[in-house]
């Protein structure tokens, strides 16, 4: 993808975020007891959606790699996993800050935060696994296998932690499902710039994987000579 296109996408994303922020801060109504900090939800939740999207694409790319053995799929998998992990960290840290403000504690085993933490551990493990394997085809193969295991585990982790938390109820960020429709719309509206950023970062990361491949080829040539 051309550099200009990437910069344009970034600018568009920035513009959208600012536009959304003005609505978030000025137009939308207050939530009952939480004060202004509630508005962080419009970044906290879409970041989680972005992270999960990354993990889904990584799993699909992993299956594609195992079937086709084209290293481009492996490059895609690692790129979206890394970017997804960045968004997962955003979700976790904003969640912790939010929790610290409203409940006074940095961490509570809230179902959603805990699930995201486990996902972050899984995908950090994925990145660690890649560092441990030198040979590109083997690295791609092992990472693909792990990515598939990890992604299948994600919904099971989600359900099990939900059940666990219903047995020992903890404070929940959003009580029940009753949310102002305007807020729902804004969460989706704010997801758009985050998705744009996700794509831009993934493309940049993909290019770096390709550069690595080029380096490997050059090294092999150097050794041959």
């Amino acid at each position, binding site marked *: 993808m051309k550099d200009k296109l990437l910069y344009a996408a970034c600018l568009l994303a920035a513009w959208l975020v600012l536009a959304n922020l003005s609505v978030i801060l000025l137009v939308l109504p207050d939530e009952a007891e939480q004060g202004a900090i509630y508005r962080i939800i419009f970044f906290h939740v879409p970041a989680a959606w972005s992270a999960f999207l990354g993990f889904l694409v990584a799993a699909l790319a992993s299956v594609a790699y*195992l079937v086709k053995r084209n290293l481009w799929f492996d490059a895609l998998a690692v790129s979206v996993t890394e970017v997804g992990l960045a968004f997962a960290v955003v979700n976790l840290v904003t969640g912790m800050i939010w929790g610290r403000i409203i409940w006074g504690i940095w961490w509570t085993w809230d179902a959603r935060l805990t699930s995201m933490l*486990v996902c972050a*551990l*899984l995908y950090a*493990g994925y990145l*660690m*696994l890649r560092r*441990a*394997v030198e040979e590109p085809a*083997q690295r791609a*193969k*092992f990472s693909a*296998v*792990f990515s*598939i*295991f*990890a992604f*299948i*585990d994600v919904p*099971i*982790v989600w*359900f*099990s*932690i939900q*059940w*666990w938390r219903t*047995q020992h109820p903890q404070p929940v960020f959003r009580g029940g499902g009753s949310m102002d429709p305007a807020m729902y719309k804004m969460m989706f509206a704010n997801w758009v710039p985050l998705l744009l950023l996700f794509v831009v970062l993934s493309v940049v990361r993909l290019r770096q994987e390709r550069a690595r491949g080029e380096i490997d080829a050059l090294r092999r040539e150097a050794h041959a000579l």
Partner: protein
Amino acid sequence: MSFFRHSVQIASKDLRAELRTKEALNASLSFALVILLLFSFAFDPTAEQTREISGGLLWLVFAFAGALILNRSFARELTNDCLDALVASPVSGPALFTGKCLANMALLVAVELICLPVFGIFYNVRWAHRFWPLLLTLILGTWGITVVGTVFSALTVNLRLRELMLPTLVYPLLIPALMAAIQLTTGLLAGQPLAAELTNWLKLLIGFDIIFTALALGLVETVLMG
């Protein structure tokens, strides 16, 4: 039916090799017992506290002890190129995997069955009256640990930092199974009947086992042979 024949052959080979040296078994068992005793010293829990943490304590001990057994599972094949020989043999990937799973399962369950009475003694917990449901939990939970652990034992066998990579990759994957096993064990030891809430956890554990066994059988050929 050569699949079953091969699996049993591999399982008995592994068990025979292990029982002759008892390396992994001793390491695993000593580790488990030491942790159990250390926890008893460190926390000196009251009866009430023990009731609450029993499941968690037991399964964490089993998971850590299991890592020692699982690590050796494929690592044992590295010397003298035994792994290459196995891969080149007519034994299919899934059969090799199943054989190793059965062997690891047997070893880990043996360790667990020894830990249970020790736990009962040092923590003053009565478990014998719930033995059969507990055994069911042990088997289902251990199968989950074994299946995921064996696949990744195969995957990490040739990597640097193998002993670090195996737990790092496997423990997060096992969280649902461990959680279910912990809830079941705590509930059973507290005297709850195997009904209502606990059956949900049982179903989760069974589901986890089925899904990951299928996934492992599907992917192990790729891991071993490419």
